[in-house]
Every structure is written in C-alpha cells, then in structure tokens.
C-alpha cells in the first residue's frame, strides 16, 4: 500500500485514540482557569502554553479533538444517510422520481454551501447538535449523485434480474444488493467528507457561530488566537496545525481508498 495512505491511516488513528482517551491524556482540566498563568508560552508544565484565561492549551486541544471528530463523523453520517437513500431511490426508480430528486440536488448545489450553513446556524442556536445536522443536511448532494450513478449502471446487471425473477422486493434489492455493491466510490466521498466537515465546523467555531466557549473546539481556540495575535503564537499555531494534520490524514486516506478501488 502507498506510503502516503499508510501515513493517512496513522494520522486518523492517532486522533481517534486521542479523542477516545481524552480524559486520560489531558494533563489538566480543560476548563480550569488559572489567572496567574495567562498566556504563557509552551513550557514543561504546559506543553502547548496557556490561553488568555490561563487554561492549559494542550488539554483544551485534546478535548477539542473529541468535538471535531464527533462533528465530523455524525455530520457525514447524516449526509450519507440522506445521500445514499436519495441517490439509490433516484437511480433505482428513475423517471419522475429521479427527475424530482435530481432537480432538488441541482437547486441545493446552486447555493454556496457555506452560505447556507451560516444562514441556518445563525438563525438557530449554535449548538453542537444543530451544527452536525446542518452540515449533514447540506453536504449529501455529492454522495447522492455518486450513488445514483452507480445504481444506474448496476441495476441492469444480470444478478439483479435474477433477484427480481425470484421475487425479491424492491427494498431488499436496493438495500442488500445494489447499495453494498455501489459503496466503493461513496466510501471515498465519506472519508473526504469527514475532512470537509471538520473544516466547516472549525470555520464556524472560528467565526463565533460554531461550538461556543467555554467548550473547546480547535476553531474557537483559533479565534482566540486571532485576538491575541502577536502575544501568543501558540494559540494560533497549534489549533491550526491540528486541523491541518487531521484534514490531511483523512484526505490521504480517502485518496488511498480511491487508488485501491481504481484497479
């Protein structure tokens, strides 16, 4: 397997482990305020330094991993459910069902996605659940198109005719035969989608309408970093690096899966 892909897997795994074992890994309580140590540079006691309330940056970032990954997975999960379902239905049933769904996708794709997300998030409460749902509800279109394309080519294959001949129901055909066989390119999309979702969440948090403080998210830590630019380089450097590396990991993994499937 490609070296880069392995690198990607390592990164992804690394952050998942951090997220799962956050309480064990983080040396401090991420919410613990320490007025005497405001904005200190990285040192032995605080390896990433502290923020403007004296909180340990490293611990906050460790817990931020949980947020980022959780949002990433669930948002993409929602997007996948919607996308796979709609794509499969459109591809399988065709005709006017297909037309309606495809038109709907076309309309949704006309909007700059970030605009849509911004609009809805700002109008609702910026809670984590809302963020996950909104990102999910605005990023399913690519997956739907992919699934539809795969289903369109698969449904004319002989094994599908065989299934119909023995009287299998549509639902069964779709869920047990078509979708599993069509998952390959969708998998790539899902992996890359997680990267995208993490980017969106951190952008939202950065702008102040994502994860709200005091809950730590890489994005809102970066926002603080902007405020203290010049006074605390670590506030900008580490969260940015974390986002970058995570997204890189998922991109590499996604590309690796794509290479494998292009055999």
């Amino acid at each position: 397997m490609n070296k880069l892909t392995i690198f990607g897997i390592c990164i992804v795994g690394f952050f998942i482990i951090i997220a799962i074992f956050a309480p064990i890994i983080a040396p401090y309580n991420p919410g613990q305020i320490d007025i005497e140590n405001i904005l200190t540079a990285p040192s032995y006691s605080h390896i990433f330094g502290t923020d403007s309330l004296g909180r340990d940056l490293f611990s906050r970032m460790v817990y931020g991993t949980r947020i980022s990954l959780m949002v990433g997975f669930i948002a993409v999960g929602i997007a996948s459910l919607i996308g796979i379902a709609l794509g499969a239905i459109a591809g399988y049933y065709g005709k006017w069902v297909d037309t309606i769904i495809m038109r709907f996708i076309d309309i949704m794709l006309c909007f700059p996605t970030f605009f849509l997300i911004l609009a809805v998030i700002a109008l609702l409460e910026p809670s984590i659940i809302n963020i996950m749902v909104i990102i999910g509800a605005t990023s399913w279109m690519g997956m739907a198109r992919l699934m539809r394309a795969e289903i369109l080519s698969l449904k004319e294959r002989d094994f599908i005719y065989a299934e119909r001949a023995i009287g299998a129901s549509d639902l069964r055909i779709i869920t047990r035969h078509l979708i599993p066989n069509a998952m390959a390119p969708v998998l790539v999309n899902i992996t890359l989608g997680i990267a995208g979702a993490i980017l969106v969440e951190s952008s939202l948090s950065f702008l102040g309408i994502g994860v709200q403080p005091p809950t730590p998210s890489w994005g809102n830590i970066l926002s603080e970093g902007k405020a203290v630019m010049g006074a605390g380089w670590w506030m900008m450097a580490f969260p940015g690096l974390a986002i970058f590396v995570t997204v890189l990991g998922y991109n590499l993994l996604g590309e690796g899966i794509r290479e494998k499937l292009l055999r």
Partner: protein
Amino acid sequence: MWKQIFKRIIGLIVLLLGITVITFAVIHVAPGKPTDMEAQFNPKVSMEARDRIAHLYGLDKPLGVQYIEWLKRVIRFDFGISFMDSRPVMQKILERIPITLTIELFSIILILLIGIPIGVGSAVKEGSFYDRFMTVFVFIGFAVPTFWLSLVLMDFIGVRWALLPISGITSLEFEKFGFFEKAIDMSKHLILPVAVSAFGGLAGISRYMRSSMLNVLKQDYIRTARAKGLTEKEVLYKHALKNALLPVVTILGLSVPGLIGGSVIFESIFSIPGMGRLFYESVMSRDYPVIMGVLVIGAVLTLLGNLLADISYAAVDPRIKLE
C-alpha cells in the same frame, strides 16, 4: 435546436424558483419573528406595537402568501430594505459584488496559471520525484484551512514583516493617489486575499488536470500521433493537452460556489468589503432581507457560472453541438 433552448430555459426557471423556495424556507426555519430583533432593542414596545410591525411587514399572513409576495418583488430584483441601515438590499449587494468577483476572477486566473502546468507536468513525469513532490504539495494545499492560512499570512507578511497591507482594499491616502498609484495600491491589498482564495483551488485543479492528462495519454490517438513521427512536444502539448483540458473547463465553472462560499472567511479576516463579509455581517445581525438577497444572488451567480462552464465546454469540444 430551439426545442433544446426552450428546455434549457424551462430548466433554468425551475432552478431559479427552487432557489427562492429554499431561501425562503431557510429564513423561516428560525424560531421567532424577524421583528423580534427590532423589538428587542426597545423593551417598551408593547405587544400591540409588535403586532402592528408584524402586520406592516406582512408577517402575520400565512407563509404561502408571504412567499408569493416576496417572490413578486424578487423577480424585479427588489429585495427590500436592510434592517441595519435601511438602504435597499440590492444596492448594498451591488456595491459588494464587483470586489468579490474581482478577487474570484484573479483567483481563477492564478489557479489556472499555476495549477494546469503543475498537473500536466506531474502527468508527463508520472512517478518521478517531481510528481511525488507535487502530490504531497497538493495534499497539503487541500488540507490547510483557509482561515488559518489567512491568519498566518496576516501575521507574518502583514504584521511582522509589514510587506503587504492586511485590511480593506485601499489605503488611507488612496484619494490622493494618481491613477497608477491607485491601481498598485489596490493590487497590493488584493494580493493576500487572492492568494488565500486560490490556494485550495490550486490543489484541486492540478490534481484533476493530472488525472485527466494521464487518462488522455493512454488513448489510442496518442499512439497514432507518435506513429506519425510527431515530436514529443507536439504529442503532449498539441494532441494530448487539448483533450485533457476539456473536463477541466467544466470544473472551473463548478468551482464558483466554492469560491463564493470561501469568501466569507477571508473577507472577514482581511476586512474586504465584499459579498462574503456582507453576508456574515447580515447573518450576525439577523438582517433578513439582506440574508435572503445574498443567498439568492449568490445562487444566481453560481447558476451563471455553471452555464458559462457548459457553454465553454460545448465551444471547445467538437463532439458536442452548441445550442
């Protein structure tokens, strides 16, 4: 042929209608009435006063009716008055569009100028050090968050090394400049935003160009070109390149929504008075008319971008008949 054009137009109308529906739906997803914001500023406003305001804006009518009313005005590009400064929404948007579009245009040019050669070079030298280096470089480009990049650039180039301005599109003494100086001043201000905007797209295009070129190089007609005794340059840059560029043209048109969406971030960070920042400000202040206006206009611009992509594709690929 006319039938095709007719179908196309119908399709466009459907899309436009759909855009308005979604926009309308998105706004009315919010709990509470749009007037709440106004009323909040003045706690002495009574329930009757609020109802009166609601009635004034037509907010007490059923949603369907509200939509039709709104749609009727939108068709005439009347998006109402901004809640924030009572100026016509369309005017505010029109002020901002040129700047955002300019930045986007330059981004696209940059992306093409840099991304296409990188992609072609990687394909031609497949497997070489150059190819692998570029692959890594491209992945990094994909992964860097725009807002982080903006901040880092701002910090180093703008603050520490003070090479370029980091705020707005003109300096304070702009009015005193001659024409040339004005142009240079604006350009300096635009360098960072354009660079940030182009960065992610660069990765995408070069990757896409590479795979398109690789695909083309496997084709039979390339073998024919070689068999004819053409130079390697002719084979690559005449026969292969033209075919490989075809799908890239489409991708360009499709990247418009991404560029518009991304503008929110760097316009906010670099204080550029463009559409993205307008949208952000209107969202933060619940300025509904502006929000709806920008959503619709943004979607329309995307539509235009797609249309342009389709037309350009049909223009360059002889296998496709132009409308």
